[in-house]
């Protein structure tokens, strides 16, 4: 956005090498200040990230979009009253609101795979990426001959909300698609956490994670392939997380992320 700085002919410049990193290098400086364009661009990125955190997830719209993909869904909520409480009380994002327990009771039990879509820390990521990812995964689940529970779309959910949902549905594995904590450069990263034999109170070391699912990150189809490979390994070994032996076709685990 900033006007290019003048440069001496022939002098090497870091600006020529920006493609080597996403980091905001060679921004230019006026005294200690950023160029106006760079300063405002930073402000815009922060505003987008804040919006991703604070915008409520439109669960109804997600449910409709899932239906258009041929997927049944129910709308649930975790036990945090609102966004402010959700941010202060991560524990409440890990348990279901009592009303949602009753909704789950009507769905039956004994599924191979339960699929949960939760807002996490970025409703933007869920709105943009969750339905295509769910559809790509559902196609692989069908092809593998596994049964799939109706998709649980959860407001104010943390990663561990998959545990009570998966346990109540008596699912062999639960897949949680959740908005990752937005960074400045990407507010739309979707995370995927898969847990075998879900039950409330499991440590995070029992989960496998695939992160950075978004347009400019890990593509939806590639992510769904990784999910399928993880599910196959989990179904065969009956466990997940640090104890899971990984097929060589599966990408190495992503670096640990701050909790979504």
């Amino acid at each position, binding site marked *: 956005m900033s006007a290019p*700085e*003048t*440069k*001496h002919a022939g*002098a*090497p*410049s*870091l*600006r020529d*090498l920006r493609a*080597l*990193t*996403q*980091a*905001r*290098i*060679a*921004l*230019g*400086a006026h*005294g*200690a*200040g*950023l160029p106006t364009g*760079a300063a405002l661009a*930073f402000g815009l*990125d*922060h505003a987008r*990230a*804040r919006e*991703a*955190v604070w915008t409520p997830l439109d669960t109804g719209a997600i449910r409709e979009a899932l239906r258009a993909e041929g997927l049944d869904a129910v709308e649930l909520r975790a036990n945090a009253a609102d966004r402010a409480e959700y*941010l*202060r*009380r*991560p*524990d409440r994002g890990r348990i279901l609101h009592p009303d949602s327990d009753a909704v789950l009771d009507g769905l039956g039990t004994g599924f191979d795979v339960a699929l949960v879509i939760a807002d996490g*820390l970025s409703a933007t990521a869920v709105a943009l990426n969750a339905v295509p990812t769910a559809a790509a995964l559902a196609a692989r689940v069908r092809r593998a001959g596994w049964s799939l529970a109706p998709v649980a779309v959860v407001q104010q959910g943390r990663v561990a909300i998959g545990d009570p949902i998966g346990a109540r549905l008596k699912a062999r594995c639960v897949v949680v698609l959740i908005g990752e*904590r*937005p*960074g*400045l*450069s990407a*507010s739309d990263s979707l995370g995927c956490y898969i847990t075998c034999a879900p039950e409330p109170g499991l440590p995070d070391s029992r989960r496998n994670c695939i992160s950075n699912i978004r347009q400019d990150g890990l593509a939806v189809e590639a992510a769904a392939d990784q999910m399928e490979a993880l599910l196959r390994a989990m179904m065969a070994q009956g466990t997940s997380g640090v104890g899971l032996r990984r097929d060589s076709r599966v990408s190495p685990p992503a*670096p640990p*992320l*701050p909790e979504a």
Partner: protein
Amino acid sequence: MAYATTIEGTRFTFPDLRSLLAKATPERSGDQLAGLCAEGPVERLAAQIALADLPLKAFLAEELIPSEKDEVSDLIARRHDPTAFAPVASLTVGAFREWLLAPAADAQALAALAPGLTPEMVAAVSKICRLQDLVAIAAKRPVVTRFRSTIGLPGRLATRNQPNHPTDSSAGILISALDGLLMGSGDAVIGVNPATDSLPDYIRIVELLETLRLRLDVPTQHCCLGHVTVAIEAMARGAPVDLVFQSVAGSQKANAGFGVDLAVLREAAEAARALGRCPEGGQCMYFETGQGSALSADAHWGVDQQTMEARAYAVAREFDPLLVNTVVGFIGPEYLYNGKQIIRAGLEDHFCGKLLGLPMGVDVCYTNHADADGEDMDALLTLLCAAGVNFVITVPGADDVMLNYQSLSHHDAVFARETLGRPPAPEFEAWLRAVRITDAQGRLAGAAGELPPALAEASRLLPGRAA
């Protein structure tokens, strides 16, 4: 033992030292999450009044976490020096605050006192200090450490150049490190948080940073912030390790959550020293801490997060570090909710670290789910410079693209140098001038992003520019 105070006929009681400290702590979300905080401002003030009347000696008589179950408590008890404590041994917490503020408590007196203080004592007095007190007292206590640069001299501010990359790409790390050097950042350390924690990557990263350092002849030290056990293996294989890094916390259980104990830290410190890279009398350990880490590991023993943080400094102090910093706003809003809480915590941590004799820096930072922004960081940086912070962390454009949070930008260090008059370490200051990154007045000399002649050589390290 119970503690109590009466305000206008209402009696407030606190069943033990832990609850007295927790309820006297200025408001923060982590203590609320833990269910330890005061119920409101009046109860908080009642606790602060009761705390102010408490003799400092009470912290020697009553352990917050029993020594027999916690090696950090045991360390604190073993290292307490009664002779150094003597000048303040008869004081209450409130009188100790006044003692610290008085002119007689100068750099020499505070340095002599440090071995006599426990983390609990400094945490307690910080709870009844305003921000201004935290700044005024810390500013009187320089802590100087040395490797290739001398860090913490009065009136100076060093920086950690943090060239992280999401996949640890060598080119990505290198160009980001160069970007920081061109803005004058990196005299505390050039330190990379690795995305992976494998031994080959650790060795590749330290070798890369070593090559950069040698090519440019820059008087600083480098660090790959991998796990201490990886560092031990890398050193055994002859990797050029300047600083050994580890995150530490204030209880044995919380440290176990980081995969460390005092024994492994000692092993690492001895191995780093034995490499002979660090000068005689210099330091070669680097620790990071942060309020909330003990609670997040379910290892806080019912102790408030700020006191737990101060206890982490007892661990750091044991290993004579070159650098210690709190990563104050990284942990998220469930521990420090907003800019106000982050700013106070940053100043508390700096104050407590300095009183205990640590070379204290701060990662002035926030995440996008906290109610904070760059203006809060402007305020914290300015306050920390007034308080004499040893170093801060800077990244390109304030955006760490690996850890997904906002730290300070390299530009912010320029602000501190040029507006607040805080030059970097003297060796690094001379180097910046010699390679013409800065002019004779210490101001940035060239057009931004352009490599001065002495650094053009370094660009040959980058892909497609081989010599």
